[in-house]
Every structure is written in structure tokens, then in C-alpha cells.
């Protein structure tokens, strides 16, 4: 499973161990959560002593131990899925169709299936633990006419199992929609235990809310379609249906307080187990890692900060290295001095050169990306003639666009024009991080698809109308109407452009703090040589960002999500980047002040910097 990932020392030595530690902690916490679940599920207000004694005897029973073993397996698989699917750059579908394609993707289907099974397993454990009428699938019952005892289907047990499958699917589904596997970094550093303690109430709240939602939805679903699985199970397993009991897919059957209580309690337990695993994984993976700035041994050279920053294949290492750079630039005098130091034979500022070069290339890459997007939008804005159809350079890049899904769905007769929906590593579900992690050269950066999506969406109909007759056009306009009303999710393209901007924010912080610190700490003046290029790089980026925020939807704020485990930090990254960029320029201008006039930069940039010197930005 991880054979391809192990190329990099960092994955091998750090990430894997962090994941193992997080899984180990989730397994260790399992008995605690199970005990709480047992206490809550057997809760009786009027017989407290009996309640406690029952629970203690249950906790030591063999069935509970077996359930724990099964739950450990579930947690293990959840942890492995976390490690396999986690991403530092969220995949942002730019339209409803792309989202649909993501949800229906084979890889996602497998994921859903596994989660359904795990949900059923957990619910089976829960029903065994609750005991009573939930414990087994078959129960002996008397037939009303003959009076003989036969095995009947226990609908309560089935109800809980199906609820588990439903919750598993909805977890997997919401995982895609809400980017559950996106791991974001906190703005402040905390030790793992305080952070865990601080997040725990949020996780409990989320799992309770999610469980209540799921319980409601499942009850409604079961009310309408409950008879289907019921009859199927009873016919395949040759179980009778006890007609003397109230069927659960009726209003009176569902309005059973104890049933709903147990359903929501078990659902909470189920979600809590999964969310806890996700939380621990996030905490462990985002923990800061301190890379050495320079090493005396040549074999450790690849683990030093300048080398690690230049690495592009292992995204998690690059992110942690940039975070480390931002931290050392603010908090660590001794490591800053190492950055500014000269190499021993030769006297070259290799460390500073490598670090500043890497940061600036990151920033200028973002500038290029923004400019390309602006060009694309600008050329899209004007009315295109039919001749534009001929130049379709981007159609050769098929995937992840509304157009591709669109054409594949109506394709067949025009296979030459359609791009097949190819489910592979290039799929929408696998994030760029995964792609980079498996060592494959990424065909395009994550923003590319979003840039092209408006192109193709508007071009698609034109292709049709240009090449086919009136019927096709009618059909198409109908389809177009369905999707085009809300085809482009507002601000999604803007979000996708800045999806990996956490890296840029750290680069800006690191660079600006190092430059500011160099004013007093840089003994050899190594920073001064790069100061003009750093300043112009920042100003150019600022201009591009300013222009981007003039685009429609770019400055609209996302709706704040209520309690959810899915992290929505990526939705506001562009604002964070703009703030970080301005702060970075201010940091440099306030430190250097009038000395900036001696720096050799172009007049326009100087004019812009003068605005910063006067605090007019």
C-alpha cells in the first residue's frame, strides 16, 4: 500500500511513525470511549446501583472484549485510510458536475463500501453491548396460527445494522463534500496534549450533532424503504417476520423513544470513534518538525532545511519545512544566525541563497498562476466568435472539469470530441498531494482545472451547436439549462487558486522576518544582495493579488459552516494570504525605513513601497 511512498526519508522516518502513534493512541482511547458508551446505553435513572453493577459486569464480559477487538480493527482501518487519503491541499470541485464525478468515482465507491462495512461492524458491536432486544439477528418466536416456535427476524437488530451502514456511507460522502481528509495547520503552535484537550469538546459536539442528523435521515429513509432490506434478509436467511410485533417501518414503530435514544447514542459512539482517529492523526501530522539548517556531515545534507525546501515530491515535508522556516525566523536567534552564516571553505552564503531562492520561486509561481487566471477570465469575459472553437488547446487535458463529465455523459456519437472519464491516479478524488506522494509527476497543478473549467463549459455547447443538428442543440440546451444555472460554484475557482497558499503564507512570514532580522543580525550582509529581488517579488505578487480581488466573487466571504469535522480553512486562505503579504511588506519597510531608498529597484515598485512607508496601504 505504501511501497511507492517510501522513497522519501521523511515519509519513512517521520510521517509513518506519527501515523502509527496516532493510531496507537486512538486504540488506547477505545476502552475509555467504550466504557462511556456502555454506561450511557444502559442508563437507568431509577436503579442507579443496578445500573452500575450491570455495567461493570458487562465491561468484563467476553462479548465486550470481543467487541473491543473488532473495534480495534475498525480503528486500525480508519487510521490507515487517514494515512492513505490525507491531503494538505484540498481538492476543490469547481462545479456541481465535478463534485458528482468525485462522489461517483470508483475509488470513492470502494471507500464508501469499506466505511459501510465498518459502520455495520461498529453497530453490531454496539447492539451486542446494549443487549436486550437488540442483541441478535434471529429471535425465537411463536407463530400465531400453529403455536410452534420458529426463528424470526429481529427487526431492531437489523435496524441498527442498517443505520450503521447508512452512517458509514454518509461519513464517507460528507468526507468528500466537506474535505474531511484535508489537514490544515493551526495559526499557533501547541503541544499535542493541550491541543487534543482543547479540540475534544468540539469533536464530541460534532459527533453528537452528526449522529442526530444521521438518525433523523435514517429514520425517514427506513420509514419509506425499510421493507426492502427487511424482506430481502428474511427471504435469504429464511427468517420469519413476527407479525405480532409492531413493524419498525411504521410511524408508531419508529416513535419509540428508547429505540431512537439507542440509535443516536450508538451513532454518536460510531462517529466519535472515527472523528477521534481523524483528530489524532491531524494533531500528529501537523506537529512542527525542526529541520537542521546545516549539517556537518555530508550524508545528512539532504535532511537540511535548504535541501528539504527545494523538494517538490513530498508535499508534507515541504509544508513542514516552510512552517519550520517561519518559526525559526520569528523565534530562534541561533538558527537565524546559521541561515545568515557563510560556508566554511569558500565563504558563500549557501544557506541563505537556497532558502531565499526557494521562497521566491514559490511566490513567483503563485504570481504566474494568478496572472494566468486573470488572463483566462479576461479572455472569457468577452464574447467569442465561433472560430474560437478551433483553438482548443486545453481540451487535450481532459479531467476534472464539468466539460469532461458532460461530454462523456452525452458522448458516444461524438467520441472524437469527448474525453473519456478515466478513473486513475489523475482522478479528481486523488489530491495533488497523493499524486506527488506516489512519485508521479503531476500533469498539472491543482488550479489548472479550475482555470479551464469555464472555458470548457462555455465551449462545450458551441462544439455541439457547431457540429450537430437542431435536435442535438435542443437536447443540449435542455441539459445546459439544468447545469448552467449553478454550474460554476461561486468563488470555487478563487478558492482553488489559493488552495495551497498555506505554503506561501509561511514563505512570506519566513522571508520577511529573516530580512527584518538581518537588519541587526546579518553580520556579512548576505541578505542585502537579494533584497532588491525579494522586494520586487513581493510587490509584483501584491499587484497580482490586488487584481485578483477585483474579480467577481473573489472578495466574497464564504458562509461559515456550523460544527463539522471537515476543515474549511482553505476557503479563507486567499484573505489570509493577502493579509500575510501586506504584513510581510510592512515588516520589511518599517525595519529598513529610509534605507530602502538606497535599494536598487524600479521606480514603480519604489512608488508602491513609498505607500507602505507612509502607511497608506
Amino acid at each position: 500500500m505504501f511501497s511507492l511512498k517510501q522513497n522519501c526519508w521523511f515519509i519513512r522516518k517521520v510521517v509513518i511513525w506519527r501515523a502509527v502513534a496516532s493510531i496507537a493512541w486512538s486504540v488506547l482511547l477505545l476502552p475509555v470511549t467504550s466504557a462511556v458508551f456502555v454506561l450511557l446505553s444502559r442508563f437507568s435513572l431509577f436503579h442507579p446501583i443496578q445500573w452500575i453493577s450491570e455495567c461493570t459486569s458487562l465491561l468484563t464480559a467476553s462479548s465486550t472484549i470481543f467487541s473491543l477487538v473488532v473495534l480495534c480493527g475498525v480503528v486500525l482501518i480508519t487510521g490507515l485510510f487517514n494515512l492513505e487519503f490525507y491531503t494538505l491541499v484540498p481538492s476543490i470541485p469547481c462545479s456541481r458536475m465535478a463534485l458528482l464525478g468525485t462522489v461517483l468515482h470508483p475509488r470513492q465507491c470502494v471507500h464508501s463500501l469499506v466505511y459501510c462495512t465498518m459502520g455495520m461492524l461498529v453497530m453490531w458491536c454496539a447492539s451486542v453491548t446494549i443487549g436486550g432486544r437488540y442483541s441478535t439477528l434471529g429471535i425465537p418466536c411463536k407463530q400465531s396460527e400453529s403455536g410452534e416456535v420458529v426463528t424470526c427476524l429481529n427487526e431492531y437488530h437489523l435496524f441498527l445494522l442498517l443505520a450503521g451502514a447508512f452512517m458509514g456511507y454518509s461519513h464517507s460522502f460528507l468526507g468528500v463534500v466537506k474535505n474531511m481528509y484535508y489537514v490544515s495547520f493551526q495559526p499557533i503552535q501547541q503541544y499535542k496534549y493541550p491541543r487534543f484537550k482543547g479540540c475534544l469538546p468540539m469533536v464530541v459536539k460534532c459527533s453528537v450533532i452528526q449522529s442526530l442528523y444521521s438518525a433523523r435521515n435514517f429514520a425517514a429513509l427506513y420509514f419509506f424503504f425499510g421493507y426492502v432490506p427487511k424482506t430481502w434478509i428474511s427471504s435469504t436467511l429464511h427468517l420469519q417476520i413476527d407479525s405480532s410485533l409492531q413493524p419498525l417501518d411504521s410511524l408508531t414503530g419508529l416513535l419509540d423513544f428508547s429505540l431512537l435514544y439507542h440509535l443516536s447514542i450508538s451513532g454518536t459512539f460510531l462517529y466519535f470513534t472515527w472523528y477521534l482517529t481523524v483528530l489524532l492523526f491531524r494533531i500528529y501530522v501537523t506537529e512542527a518538525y525542526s529541520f537542521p539548517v546545516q549539517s556537518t556531515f555530508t550524508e545528512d545534507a539532504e535532511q537540511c532545511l535548504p535541501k528539504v525546501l527545494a523538494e517538490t515530491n513530498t508535499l508534507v515535508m515541504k509544508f513542514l519545512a516552510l512552517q519550520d522556516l517561519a518559526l525559526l525566523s520569528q523565534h530562534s536567534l541561533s538558527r537565524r544566525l546559521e541561515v545568515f552564516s557563510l560556508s566554511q571553505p569558500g565563504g558563500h552564503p549557501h544557506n541563505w541563497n537556497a532558502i531565499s531562492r526557494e521562497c521566491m520561486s514559490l511566490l513567483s509561481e503563485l504570481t504566474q498562476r494568478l496572472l494566468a487566471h486573470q488572463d483566462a477570465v479576461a479572455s472569457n469575459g468577452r464574447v467569442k466568435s465561433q472560430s474560437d472553437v478551433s483553438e482548443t488547446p486545453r481540451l487535450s487535458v481532459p479531467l476534472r472539469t464539468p466539460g469532461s463529465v458532460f461530454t462523456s455523459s452525452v458522448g458516444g456519437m461524438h467520441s472524437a470530441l469527448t474525453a473519456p472519464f478515466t478513473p486513475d491516479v489523475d482522478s479528481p478524488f486523488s489530491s495533488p498531494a497523493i499524486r506527488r506522494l506516489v512519485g508521479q509527476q503531476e500533469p498539472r497543478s491543482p488550479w489548472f482545472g479550475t482555470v479551464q473549467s469555464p472555458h470548457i463549459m462555455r465551449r462545450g455547447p458551441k462544439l455541439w451547436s457547431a457540429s450537430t443538428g437542431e435536435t442535438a442543440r435542443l437536447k443540449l440546451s435542455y441539459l445546459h439549462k439544468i447545469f448552467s444555472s449553478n454550474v460554476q460554484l461561486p468563488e470555487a475557482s478563487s478558492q482553488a487558486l489559493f488552495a495551497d497558499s498555506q505554503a506561501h503564507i509561511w514563505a512570506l512570514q519566513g522571508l520577511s522576518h529573516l530580512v527584518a532580522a538581518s537588519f541587526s543580525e546579518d553580520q556579512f550582509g548576505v541578505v542585502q544582495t537579494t533584497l532588491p529581488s525579494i522586494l520586487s517579488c513581493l510587490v509584483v505578487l501584491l499587484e497580482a493579488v490586488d487584481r485578483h480581488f477585483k474579480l467577481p466573487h473573489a472578495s466574497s466571504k464564504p458562509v461559515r459552516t456550523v460544527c463539522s469535522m471537515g476543515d474549511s480553512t482553505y476557503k479563507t486562505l486567499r484573505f489570509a494570504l493577502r493579509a500575510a503579504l501586506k504584513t510581510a511588506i510592512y515588516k520589511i519597510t518599517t525595519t529598513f525605513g529610509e534605507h530602502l531608498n538606497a535599494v536598487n529597484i524600479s521606480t514603480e515598485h519604489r512608488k508602491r513601497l513609498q505607500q507602505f512607508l507612509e502607511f497608506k496601504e
Partner: protein
Amino acid sequence: YGLLDEITNSAEEGMSLTHCNHAAFAVRRFSLWASSFHGSLFPHLTLSSDEMVAEFSQMLDWSDSALRSFAWHPHTDKFAVALLDDSIKIYKSNSSPTPTLKHRCQRSVCALQWKPLCGSALAVACQSCLLIWHVDPASLSTRPSSGCAQVLSHPGHSPITSIAWSPTGSLLVSASPVDTSMMVWDVAAESAVPLQRVGGGGVTYLSWSPDGSRLLAATPSALFRVWETRMWTCERWPCLKGSCQSACWSPDGGCLLLSMQGERVIYALTFSDLTGINNTYSSPVTAFFLMKNHLKQLFCPPFFSGSSFVLRAGDSQADNHPSVIAVFKTRSSPVFELLPCGFVMGEAGAEPRFMQFHPHFQHGALLTVCWSDGRISHVPFYFSSAGLLGGDSPQQALASNTTNPSSNKLYTEQIS
């Protein structure tokens, strides 16, 4: 307890729900007992929201003060004033228009602070939320729309009585006396990380050290904490008597001066490491100073400006003694020292309510004082070593409309 009251009453009205009545009565008794217990543990929780703001605001007599809060911009000649009608005015040194900020969430403004390393952002602590105004310095508009304001709120985190930007401008911390956790905001992303410590019952006052390595958080109880901002762990400092009222840091962040409620001394804490990297321990209290008898209560923080000044205001309850501001010179090396320097008095009947040093006055130090009669005056101190003549009289006024510089009597000696 409205519901419980209702149940009790309805049961008393002759309905035969005696069980329910008893149960509701018991629950009500219990909850009353619990709240009174909680209230006796933390008396400030029994205050209403406005009373709490008035109690913990840095502005003295906040509730009837014409000026609710005041803040200098850290880098330019610009300051913001919150007025009694909950509007905020921004004054600049030149004759450019003075924008008035109004927002429907902007009620009971308790604190203002400009974002460092930024020209436009102003954080406002309100009763229900935190507002971040983005006032474009180049704009000529006098009424920026409420679209220029970001609203940050967190359930259970109001009223907000203190805010502090990190010196790098990347984080904003807000505190509420009813919330045991303080919020660390990433303002642009509008996300908050709660940092909770239960002891103390809330956080009333925050102060970030100028080097950014430490943050003071005072609680309503006799306890304050000093957080280090690298890994966000804290040291607990149980005070001797009363809660910490206000505090200020030395410019290098190595020394913290504190004033306590009901005590006439200033405490100083020195921190051994200035860089804040390796060492998290600090040395204990090293100095305290007794005040003159007629200064009954400390109410304003001593402020550092540059490296040479501490000021504190004394509130005189005794007859015939006007309130004065005491000025101290400080020296941080070789040992920390406070030297009495003089007093600043207002007009007859006017009492100082709030004061702040101009953060980067070129020629010495500029103290801005908000008086009880609604005036704001600027008191410059010229250092003779800076090449200018030592001057006692207030010579310049930046905001002419609220200032009456000639009215101040200044009994200060010449400053070395």
C-alpha cells in the same frame, strides 16, 4: 429559570401535579444554589454585561465617560476614539476628513487597538462581538460602510473587555470575563483557537510584550498568567491581594510592571531570557514601590514609552486633592529602576480617565490623556539629550478639536 418558575407556579395553581411540582422545585433550588455558589466563587459573574464592561474596562468610570476608549496607531500620527454613542472617530495629524465608524453590532465599546504592521485595520471589542474595521487611509469618505467591518464572534465569548494584537500583526487575542478561554484569532481566516484555563473564572486584561514572546492575561480573581507565545504554555502567578488591574511591559519585553486592585504598589516581574527561545522560567518579583499617601488607588497602567518613562495615575478620594498622573523615569539596565519624575494635572475638576503614550514620538515622549470632561490632551516631554530643549508646557496638539493644550498644569521637573 423562567421555565422552572413557570412549572412551579402552574403547579401551585391547583394542578394536581405534585410530583412535578416537587421535582421542579428541587431542581430550581439546586440550580439556584449552584449559581449562587458559582457566583460566590466568582462574584463578577453576577454582574450584568454592561456592569462587567464598566468594571473591567481600562477607561475609568467607563459607563458615564464621554470617551469610551482611545488608541494611537502604532506607526503613524493617527488615533481612534470611541464615544459614548458607540461611534468611533479617527483623527489624523493633517486636516484630512475624520471618518466616523458605526455598525449595528458596535455597542458598548470597551477597547480599541490598531493592527501593527498595517495601515488600516482597527480591532474593536464590543459587547457581543469583535469588529475589525478596514479603514482605507487614502479614502476621503467620512462614513465607511459597515461592509468594511469584519464581525468575529464565538458563542459564550462576550462581552469582550480586552484585545491584544501580536506585535507582528498576525494574531489577535481577545478576552472576556465570563469565558475561561481566551481566543487566538487568525483574523483574515476568521478562525479562532480557544486557549482554556479554568482557574480565575475568566480573562479581563491582555497585554502582549513588545517583542512578542509573552502575553499577560489577568483574571478577575487574584491570579494572573503569563503565556509564552511559542508553544502557548503559561505560568500561573497567584497574586498577593486582589486581581491584576493593569500592566505594561518594558520595551525589550524583559520586565513587566503590574498594579493590583486595592494595593498601592507596583510590582515588577523580570524575565531572565529576552529572546524567549529556550528558557520558560522567570525570576520572581524583584521590586515594588510605595506610593504617597494621597494616591489612594492605582487605576491606570504605567506605560513605557521609548525607554525612559513610566506613568501612572492616582485617583484621589480625599478632599482638596485633585487627581494627578505621576510620572516616573525608568531605567532597565543594569537593574530595573523607577525614579519619580513629576506629576501631570488636569483642569480644575477634571480627572484623568485614560492615558497612552504616542508609540513613536520622534522628539521624546508624547502622553495623551483622556479627561473626565471629555477632553483629550497631549502632553509632550522633550528629552534634552535628544537635542531639543527640555520643555514643560504642552506645545503641540494633534487633534485640535478635542484638545485644549493650554489648560493643563504640569508640575513636572525638567527631564534629564
